[in-house]
C-alpha cells in the first residue's frame, strides 16, 4: 500500500478538525483498489433496505477490503411519507397522528414537542396535572422503546433470549399506555393545551405493580445480555464515537451522552414535570457501543424512578386547559425540543394564524445518528456493522418522515 491510500482510509478525520477543505467524509471516499497490484479488489456490498438488522428500511452501501470496511454510504428515504407536508393540511390537534408515525415506537415525545411549540403561540396555561401526565406517558414510552432496542440490539449481536424477555415487559407497559391513551402505539394523546384524557381509576395500582418487579427484571436483562462474555466482546471498543465526532455530527441523546457529553433536554431546558422530578443523567466515557448500551440500560432505571415519583405525586385538577375546538395560534415562528428516546426531537413551527401550520419541520435525532455512521463504520470489520447500527438505535420512521 502506498502512502496515499493510507491517507484515504483514515477515519475520524472530520471529528478531529484535521480535515482538508474539499475532502469528503471518510465514509464517502472510495479507496483505490489494487493500487500496488497485490491488494484484493474492493467489494461493494448492498446491505438493506430489506435486511433484518437495519431496524427498518435503512440501506447501507458498504465497501470492504476483505473483512474490513473502507467506506460506507447511508441511503435513506424508503419510508418517506411526507409528514412535514401533510402537517400543513392538518388541524393542530390532528398533527399528533402524523408525528406518532415518525418515531413510531415512541410517539409520545414527538407529540409533546409539537404541543410545546404550539402552546408558545397560544395564550394558554397548561394545567399542572397535564404536565405530569405528559411526563408519565413519555417515560413509560421511553422504557417501551428502550426495551425494543435492548431486544433487537441483542439480536444484532447474536443473542435471542433477551428479545423475548424484553417483549414480555414491553407488553405490560403497552397495556398501561393503552389504558392511559386508548392506543398501544399511535397515541395522539398529548395535544396542545394538555392531554386527551385523565388517568383511569386503578391504573396507578397497575403501574406500581409493574414497577415492583421491573427493577429486578432489569437486573436480569442486564445480566442476560450485558453479562454475556460474547456480547461484551462484540461491543467493547467497537463503534467509538468520541466527543468531537458526536458534536460535529449533531448527535444527541444516548449517543451523545455515551461520549460523555452531559446534555439532556429534560435537565438543560426543563419542560413538563421534569423540573420537579429527581433523576440522574447517565453518562459514558469512551463513546463505544458498550457505553451506549450501559447508558440506555441506566436510563431505563431512571425512567422507572421517575414513573414512581409521577404516580406518587400526581396532582389533582384538570388534564386539559380550555382551548378552542379549532386551534388558531397567533402568527409567529417558534422552536420546541424534548428529550425523546433517541435524542433531541425538535419541532420548528411557523404559524400564519390559520387553523393549519404554515410549516412544520420535524427534527428527528436518528437522521443525525444515521449520517454519522458514514464516519464511524470505516475501519471496522463487516461483522461489526450491524452491531454499530444497533448501538446507535436509529429509527427509520423519523429519519425519512
Amino acid at each position, binding site marked *: 500500500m502506498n502512502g496515499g491510500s493510507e491517507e484515504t482510509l483514515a477515519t475520524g478525520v*472530520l*471529528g478531529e478538525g484535521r*480535515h482538508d*477543505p*474539499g475532502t*469528503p*467524509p471518510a465514509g*464517502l471516499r472510495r479507496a483505490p483498489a489494487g493500487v500496488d497490484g497485490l491488494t484484493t479488489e474492493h467489494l461493494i456490498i448492498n446491505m438493506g433496505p430489506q435486511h433484518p438488522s437495519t431496524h427498518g428500511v435503512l440501506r447501507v452501501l458498504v465497501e470492504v477490503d476483505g473483512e474490513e470496511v473502507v467506506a460506507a*454510504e447511508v441511503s*435513506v*428515504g424508503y419510508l*418517506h411519507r*411526507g409528514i*412535514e*407536508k*401533510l402537517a400543513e*393540511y392538518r388541524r393542530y390537534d390532528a398533527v399528533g397522528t402524523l408525528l406518532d408515525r415518525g418515531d413510531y415506537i415512541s410517539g409520545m415525545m414527538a407529540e409533546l414537542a409539537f404541543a410545546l411549540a404550539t402552546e*408558545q*403561540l397560544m395564550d394558554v396555561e397548561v394545567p399542572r396535572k397535564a404536565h405530569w401526565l405528559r411526563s408519565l406517558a413519555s417515560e413509560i414510552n421511553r422504557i417501551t422503546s428502550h426495551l425494543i432496542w435492548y431486544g433487537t440490539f441483542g439480536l444484532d449481536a447474536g443473542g435471542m433470549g433477551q428479545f423475548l424477555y424484553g417483549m414480555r415487559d414491553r407488553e405490560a407497559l403497552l397495556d398501561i399506555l393503552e389504558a392511559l391513551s386508548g392506543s398501544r402505539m399511535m397515541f395522539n394523546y398529548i395535544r396542545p393545551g394538555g392531554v386527551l384524557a385523565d388517568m383511569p381509576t386503578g391504573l396507578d395500582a397497575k403501574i406500581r405493580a409493574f414497577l415492583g418487579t421491573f427493577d429486578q427484571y432489569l437486573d436480569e436483562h442486564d445480566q442476560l445480555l450485558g453479562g454475556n462474555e460474547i456480547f461484551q466482546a462484540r461491543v467493547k471498543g467497537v463503534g467509538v464515537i468520541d466527543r*468531537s465526532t458526536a*458534536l*460535529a*455530527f*449533531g448527535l*444527541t441523546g444516548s449517543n451523545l451522552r455515551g461520549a460523555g*457529553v452531559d*446534555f439532556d433536554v429534560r435537565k*438543560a431546558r426543563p419542560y413538563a414535570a421534569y423540573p420537579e422530578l429527581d433523576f440522574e443523567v447517565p453518562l459514558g466515557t469512551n463513546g463505544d457501543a458498550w457505553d451506549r448500551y450501559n447508558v440506555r440500560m441506566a436510563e431505563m432505571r431512571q425512567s422507572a424512578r421517575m414513573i414512581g415519583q409521577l404516580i406518587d405525586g400526581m396532582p389533582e385538577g384538570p388534564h386539559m386547559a380550555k382551548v378552542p375546538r379549532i386551534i388558531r395560534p397567533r402568527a*409567529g*415562528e*417558534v*422552536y420546541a425540543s424534548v428529550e425523546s428516546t433517541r435524542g*433531541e426531537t*425538535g419541532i*420548528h413551527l*411557523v404559524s400564519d394564524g390559520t387553523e393549519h401550520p*404554515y*410549516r412544520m*419541520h420535524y*427534527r428527528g435525532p436518528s*437522521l*443525525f445518528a*444515521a*449520517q454519522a455512521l*458514514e*464516519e464511524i463504520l470505516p475501519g471496522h470489520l463487516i461483522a461489526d456493522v450491524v452491531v454499530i447500527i444497533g448501538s446507535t438505535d436509529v429509527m427509520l420512521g423519523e429519519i*425519512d*418522515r
Partner: protein
Amino acid sequence: MLPATADIKRLLAAIDGATVAEEALGVIARVPLAAVNEALGAIKAAGYESLVDFDGIDTGELIELTYRLRSFSLDLEVHVKSTVAYGGTIESVWYEYPSALMPERETAELLGIHLAGHPNPKRLLTTDGVEPLLRKDVAIRTVEEVKAR
C-alpha cells in the same frame, strides 16, 4: 439559553448586511446568502460547536434557510437565517458543520434548490422526478383525486 445579541453582532461585525435580533424563535442572525459560510465560521470559532438543525421555509416569495447552532460548553443557542431564490444555489456548510450533510440534501430536494460544494449532493428522501414537495405551489392530492387514479 440565549446569547446576548451584542455578542453575536460583534462576531458578525465584518459581514455587510448582517443583522441580529431577539425574536420568539430565539436570537436570530440574518446574513446575506453569500456570507453564510463566513458567518457560520465566525460563530463556530466562538464555541458553537454543533449544528443541531437545518431546514428551509417557502415564504411564498423565496426560500428562508434556518441554521440552528448550539454551544454545549457555553450552553447557548443561536439561529442563523438567510434567503435564497427558488431554484437558487446554496453553498454547503458541511466543512464547518458535518451534521449539515443530510439536512442540506433534504432541504435542497424538498424545496427545489441546488447545492454547491457538497460531497454527495444526491436526493435524500425522494426519487428523481418528484416535485419539491415542501414548496407552497405543490399541493397534495385530494381524496377525490386519489380515488380517481
